[in-house]
C-alpha cells in the first residue's frame, strides 16, 4: 500500500535553504516523489534597470547578481562590451583580472565549505572556512575598497593598479590557505560520516548531464572534463598551467572532491599570475560615459564561476544605453530543472546538502 503523499514546503524562511527561494516537496514517508522550485523572491528586474542606465552605470548593478562571487559577472559584462566594441585590454589588466577571478573563486569555495558542512551539521567547518574567507576579503578591500562588491573589472581593463606590496600579501595569504586546507581535509574529507552522508546522494547522470545544461564543477563531478577556462579560454588562462580535476560518480562526494582540488588549483594559478605579471598600463580609457555609444549588434561572453558557466548577453542599438542585457547564471539551470530531477527519490534529510552541492544561488535565477 502506498503511503499518502504530504507536501512539505522548504522555504522561503528555512535555515536549510540557500538564499531566498522555496522548494515544494511531495513526500511519501522520507522519500521525495516530486519537487518543484519556486523562485521570484529576489526579482529586482536588473536587466530592465540596466536599460535605463548608460553602459557604465549599468556596470554598477552587476555585482548584485550573485553576491557570493560577483567578479565573474563583472568579467562577463566587461568582456562582452569589449567584444562588441573591439576594445583591446592591456596585458597587465588581463593578469590582474585573472588574479581577481581566482581570489573570488577561492572566497566562494570557502563559503561553499561552510554551506555544505552546515547543511550536514558540521558547524566547525563553516566557522573556520568563513572566518578564513575574511583574509581573502581583506585583499579585496585593499585592492578595490569593497569587501563584497568590488566593481573592479570594468570595460577596458581594471579600475586600479595593485598597491605596493600587494603581491607579497597575496602570496602570504596563499601560504596560509595551503596550511589551512590540510586542516579542512582532516575535518571534512577524512570524516567517515561525511563520506557516508555524501556518497551516492544527489546523483547527476553522466550521459544526460551535457544535454541537461549541467556546467562547472557539477559536470566535472560527473567525470566530464569541461571548463570554460580551457575550452573557450579568456584573458590569459591559456598561458597558465593548471589542471581541471574530474571525478566519476556524479554524487555530492565527487563534486566535493572536485571543488577541493579546484581550490588548490586556484592557489597554483594565483602564484603563477603573480610571477608572470608584466608591468604596463592597466586601463584602456573609455570615452565620457554619457556619450559612450556602443556599435549596433550583440555579444555574448561567458566565464567560469564556482557554480559553473555564467554569461552575459548584451544587445546594443547603437545608443549610449543598452538595448537589452541578459545574464545567464548557472543556477538558472541547476536550481530549477536539474534540482527538480535530482531531488526525486532523494531523502528529505539530504535536500539541503544537495542544494548546496549544486551551487544553488537564487539571485542569479530571477535577477
Amino acid at each position, binding site marked *: 500500500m502506498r503511503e499518502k503523499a504530504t507536501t512539505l514546503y522548504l522555504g522561503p524562511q528555512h535555515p536549510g535553504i540557500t538564499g531566498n527561494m522555496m522548494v515544494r516537496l511531495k513526500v511519501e514517508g522520507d522519500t521525495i516523489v516530486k519537487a518543484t522550485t519556486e*523562485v*521570484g523572491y529576489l*526579482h529586482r*528586474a536588473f*536587466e*530592465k*534597470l540596466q*536599460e*535605463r542606465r548608460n553602459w557604465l552605470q549599468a556596470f554598477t548593478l552587476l555585482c548584485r547578481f550573485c553576491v557570493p562571487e560577483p567578479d565573474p559577472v563583472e568579467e562577463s559584462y566587461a568582456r562582452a562590451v569589449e*567584444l562588441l566594441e573591439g576594445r583591446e585590454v592591456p596585458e597587465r589588466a588581463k593578469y590582474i583580472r585573472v588574479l581577481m577571478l581566482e581570489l573570488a573563486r577561492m572566497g566562494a569555495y570557502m563559503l561553499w565549505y561552510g554551506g555544505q558542512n552546515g547543511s550536514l551539521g558540521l558547524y566547525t567547518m563553516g566557522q573556520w572556512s568563513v572566518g578564513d574567507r575574511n583574509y581573502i576579503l581583506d585583499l579585496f578591500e585593499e585592492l578595490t575598497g569593497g569587501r563584497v562588491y568590488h566593481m573592479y573589472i570594468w570595460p577596458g581593463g581594471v579600475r586600479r593598479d595593485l598597491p605596493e606590496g600587494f603581491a607579497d600579501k597575496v602570496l602570504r595569504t596563499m601560504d596560509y590557505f595551503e596550511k589551512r586546507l590540510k586542516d579542512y581535509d582532516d575535518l571534512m574529507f577524512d570524516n567517515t560520516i561525511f563520506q557516508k552522508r555524501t556518497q551516492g546522494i544527489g546523483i547527476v547522470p553522466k550521459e544526460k548531464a*551535457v*544535454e*541537461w*545544461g549541467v*556546467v562547472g564543477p557539477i559536470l566535472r563531478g560527473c567525470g566530464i572534463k*569541461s571548463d570554460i577556462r580551457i*575550452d*573557450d579560454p579568456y584573458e590569459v588562462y591559456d598561458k597558465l598551467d593548471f589542471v581541471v580535476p574530474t571525478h566519476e560518480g556524479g554524487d555530492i562526494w565527487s563534486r566535493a572532491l572536485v571543488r577541493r582540488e579546484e581550490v588548490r588549483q586556484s592557489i597554483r594559478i594565483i602564484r603563477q599570475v603573480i610571477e608572470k605579471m608584466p608591468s604596463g598600463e592597466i586601463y584602456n580609457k573609455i570615452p565620457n560615459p554619457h556619450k559612450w555609444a556602443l556599435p549596433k549588434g*550583440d555579444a*555574448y561572453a*561567458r566565464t567560469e564561476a564556482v557554480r559553473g*558557466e555564467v*554569461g552575459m*548577453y548584451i*544587445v546594443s542599438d547603437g545608443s549610449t544605453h543598452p*538595448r*537589452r542585457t*541578459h545574464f*545567464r547564471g548557472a543556477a*538558472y*539551470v541547476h536550481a*530549477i*530543472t*536539474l534540482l527538480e*530531477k535530482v531531488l526525486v527519490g532523494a531523502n528529505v534529510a539530504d535536500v539541503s546538502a544537495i542544494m548546496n552541492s549544486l551551487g544553488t544561488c537564487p539571485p542569479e535565477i*530571477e535577477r
Partner: protein
Amino acid sequence: MMKELKEHIIRRVKANFTEAEENNDFTYDRLDFTVKKEVVPSLLLFLKEEMGFKHLSHASCVDWLEEGELELVFILWSPKDKIKVFVRTRLDRDNPVMDNMDNIWPQLHTYEREFREMFGVQFTGLEAPDEFILEDWQGPPPFRRDFDTAAYAEKTFWHRPGREDAQDVRETIANRDGEDIPDFAKKYSR
C-alpha cells in the same frame, strides 16, 4: 582552421535549411543564423543531434519596439568543435506565438516560462503555471520596452523624500517637511 570549420557548418546547415541566413562576419568563434520562427525547432534539433551543439548556453529575448518585433536568440555551444552558434528569429510583437521546445533541452522550459511572463511570448504547448517570478502581477509584461518601470515605481511605492536631486543628502533629510507620515511613524522614519 576556425574558418574552415565555420564554412563546414554553414554548408551543412544550408543544405538542410535553405532559407537560413548566415552571418559570418565575426573574427572570433561565433556564427549567426537567422531563420523564420517555424524552422527554429527543427534547426535547433538538427544542430543538437547532427552537428554536436549539445550545450544550450543561453537563450534570450530582445524587444525591438520601433520595428514592432520581438527577437528570440538561442546561443549554442559545441563542446566538440569549441564554437558558438547563434540562432535568431523574429516574432510579431503584437501576437508573439512560438512552438514549445522544452523537449529539445529541458532547461528551455525555464527560459520559456520567463519569456512568457516577462515579454508575453506565448509558447503553444508549454505546460507550466502562469506565474514564475512575479506574483499577482496586473500590469503588462514588464520587460517590454513600452513598460516604464520608473513611472510604475513612482506610482506604486512610497518614496522617501530627499533623493530627487543630487544635493547634499544630509541637508535634504534635515530640511524634510511636509511629508505625509503620521506622527507615530515619524519616530521610525528618521
